[in-house]
């Protein structure tokens, strides 16, 4: 038998949705392995209720570690110490930046292996097998582990299912490594730019780096305007990191997950980290001059051409159509 440790990312009292999904997945898999899923929360402001709430997703124990949240080092220290003190064969992370970081650190410290961007997990012969899409999702690799296995899920890969009762909370004092003392979070979760709502829109016009300059977002605004009231403008991470668009309007791995009726990408390359946040859109249209852009592999309609010429003409045509 083997138990599974799950790291629960949290911010301002709420546990991350992808962490909850990881807990539900771990609870089911631990059952198949004859063990249990236990959750580790690291932070200096975790309430009893927040910690215990992981039980509703299938965890049978919550370990609470009082240490600074927001960087990987204390998480690695905590998971390593707890894993050393019990029968734990695997650690599961819901994904995200800290999932990659702490997962990799934990695998290295415990002399284990790691699989990232995992979209599926099965038990085969008493061991976990992770499914990881590679090469632009054109292949799915199966990855097993000789010893301790760390699995980092892809965004939205695991669904949170509620049903259990609150889990008992155990406070654990963890001896932090020297590296943890060399790092200090100054600010966390800073919102940059206006608060825009992209999650409720039926039509999303998304601007990527291919727009070329921030002013070109007006092309996206105009096209959204032509579609009318249910349309909004969103952006890729590249455009947001470049300061062209507010963070609140970002789709993807470290942004929002959206599922509009129509998604139109303007100069969006379609990196996996973007795709995971919008692939549930009912119709995906991409306009990009780079015929090799990955977005053309999953767009329902791909237009290879100059968005700066096509978009204004498309805006006018849609206005005309709508009368």
């Amino acid at each position, binding site marked *: 038998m083997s138990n599974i440790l799950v790291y629960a990312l949290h911010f301002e009292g709420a546990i*991350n949705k992808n962490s909850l999904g990881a807990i539900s997945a771990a609870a089911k898999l631990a059952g198949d392995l004859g063990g249990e899923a236990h959750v580790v929360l690291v932070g200096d402001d975790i309430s009893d209720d927040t910690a215990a709430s992981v039980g509703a997703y299938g965890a049978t124990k919550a370990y609470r570690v009082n240490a600074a949240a927001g960087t990987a080092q204390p998480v690695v220290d905590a998971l390593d110490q707890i894993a050393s003190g019990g029968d734990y064969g695997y650690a599961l992370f819901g994904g995200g*930046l800290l999932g990659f970081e702490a997962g990799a650190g934990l695998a290295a410290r415990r002399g284990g292996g*790691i699989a990232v961007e995992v979209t599926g997990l099965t038990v085969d012969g008493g061991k976990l097998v992770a499914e990881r899409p590679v090469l632009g999702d054109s292949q799915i690799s199966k990855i097993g582990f000789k010893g301790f296995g760390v699995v980092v899920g892809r965004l939205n890969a695991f669904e949170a299912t509620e049903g259990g009762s609150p889990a008992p909370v155990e406070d654990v004092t963890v001896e932090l490594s020297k*590296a943890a003392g060399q790092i200090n979070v100054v600010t966390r979760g800073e919102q940059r730019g206006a608060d825009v709502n992209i999650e409720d829109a039926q*039509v999303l016009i998304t601007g990527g780096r291919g727009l070329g300059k921030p002013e070109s977002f007006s092309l996206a605004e105009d096209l959204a305007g032509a579609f009318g009231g249910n349309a909004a403008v969103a952006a890729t991470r590249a455009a947001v990191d470049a300061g062209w668009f507010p963070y609140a309007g970002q789709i993807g791995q470290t942004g929002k997950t959206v599922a509009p009726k129509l998604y139109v990408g303007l100069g969006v390359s379609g990196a996996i980290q973007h795709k995971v946040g919008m692939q549930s859109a009912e119709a995906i249209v991409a306009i990009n001059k780079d015929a090799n852009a990955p977005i053309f592999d999953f767009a329902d309609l791909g237009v290879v051409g100059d968005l700066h010429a096509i978009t204004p003409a498309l805006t006018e045509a849609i206005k005309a159509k709508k009368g």
Partner: protein
Amino acid sequence: MTKIVVLVKEVPDAAVNKQLDASTGRLVRSGERTLNPFDTHAIEAALQLKEGGELSVDEVVAVTIAPAGAEKTLNKAVALGADRSILLSDEGLAGSDVVATAYALAELVKRESPDLVLLGQQSDDGQSYAVGAAVAEYLGWPGLTQVVGLKVEGDKLRAERQAEYGYDTVEVTLPAVLSVGDAINEPRYPSLKAIMGAKKKPQEKLTLADAGIDASKVGADGSQAVWQSAEEPPAKAAGAIIEEDDVAAAVEQIVAWLDERKLV
């Protein structure tokens, strides 16, 4: 004085189709190869720290692990601004997973004892995002990944990155390992002089034995993650493609497509 090691990787050229070996589930590492685009941002970040003057960087060393023949790719890293380079090449490394690769890289870093290690946040082929954090762990240093802003603040570095809830600002005391995203800077194009000069800069070639790396901890046998097989995902119907030569015609086709699906 500060020394910076930049970890770089040779990857298949993005213009060339990447493939998996169906029998091993591993990437086929043949064909045209180039410097991982994300690593060019790490070299540029090192150069900007050097030119900024606040850190008084006296040396930037490019380090890679690659099969024989990667000298040319490593020269690209030098042309972009490294002062010298180190290539670890050994058949015993074939099949190393992320953690084993990070162990070997950390051993190479230890030989140089730099103050800062920089690398690209992801490789163009493997896309694990994980090597930097594992290298940091093996060194016992703090690690930060996906950094998109970097400033020197006294004896510390102030790094910015985007995480799940917005932007985080983190202070880190050196020595440390930082992986950078492509938004951190615009790498400069190397001058012809730099390209020509790169071939003359020192390039050290090492085997596992030369570097004192424990061969039992690398390669397929030394790796704990086992790539068992690869299969095709369920097929998705291919989308329609319009090659635009005439804007009006393309727009007409797009509108017709949207109209058919009642999306206008």
